[in-house]
């Protein structure tokens, strides 16, 4: 049983190693959600209207576990669903920073918007991989 658990943990680590930056972003997002539940929000959030904060939290809370689960269990569509929510979350956060604090938060806004773009690119890569797999199966 110990061997089986160790092998499963190694399998998960191997899968996370295929997309390490994605795994890092997902884990950081999960930490942000947990911190948010305990009332610890990023400092820039204080300038945001409440609906933005709520939207960001909900999307992050839904997206990061879905994305990490899909990555760990090799479930591409679940990973894609998580990436969609994460992308929306970071797009809202980056967009709000750009609109409300265009000068002081330009770097942070660029980072979050680029993360949102990277999530969309990853969704595209997974869609093409799924289409290729379906085509191979039908051959």
């Amino acid at each position, binding site marked *: 049983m110990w061997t089986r658990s160790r092998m499963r943990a190694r399998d998960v680590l191997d899968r996370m190693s295929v997309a390490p930056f994605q795994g890092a972003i997902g884990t950081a997002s999960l930490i942000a959600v947990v911190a948010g539940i305990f009332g610890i929000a990023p400092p820039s959030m204080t300038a945001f*209207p409440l*609906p*933005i904060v709520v*939207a960001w939290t*909900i*999307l992050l809370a*839904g*997206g990061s576990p*879905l994305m990490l689960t899909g990555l760990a269990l090799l*479930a*591409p*569509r*679940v990973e*894609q*669903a*998580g990436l*969609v*929510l994460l*992308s*929306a979350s970071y*797009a*809202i956060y980056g*967009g*709000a920073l750009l*609109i*409300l604090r265009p000068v002081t938060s330009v770097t942070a806004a660029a980072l979050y918007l680029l993360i949102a773009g990277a999530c969309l690119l990853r969704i595209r890569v997974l869609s093409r991989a799924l289409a290729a797999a379906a085509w191979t199966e039908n051959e």
Partner: protein
Amino acid sequence: MISGFETALAGGAGAVIVGAVGWAGTLLLKSVQQRASDGTRSVTDAASANAALLSTVKALQEENARLWAQNAAQAAKVAAMSRRVTDAEDQLRTALGELDAMRRELVAMRQQASP
């Protein structure tokens, strides 16, 4: 009081949320459907394999019955031939006995005829 700008921001964020949740829901539904169809396909494959195995077993049983019947027919032939051989042996023994009796009679007749 919420400004118009914040309302617009909230509206934009709301639209993004609705779109993202709808898209994510579609993807999750497709994942569930894929898993269901994979499960159905594996059940169908197992059922087909089972049906093929049953068909093979039935064919083997029929072949077995045919071979048993063939074996029984051969055994009947062997028994019939064995009976014929026994009958022939009995006839031969009877004929040999008669021949022996005739020879003894001939010897007795020769002895009577000689002075």
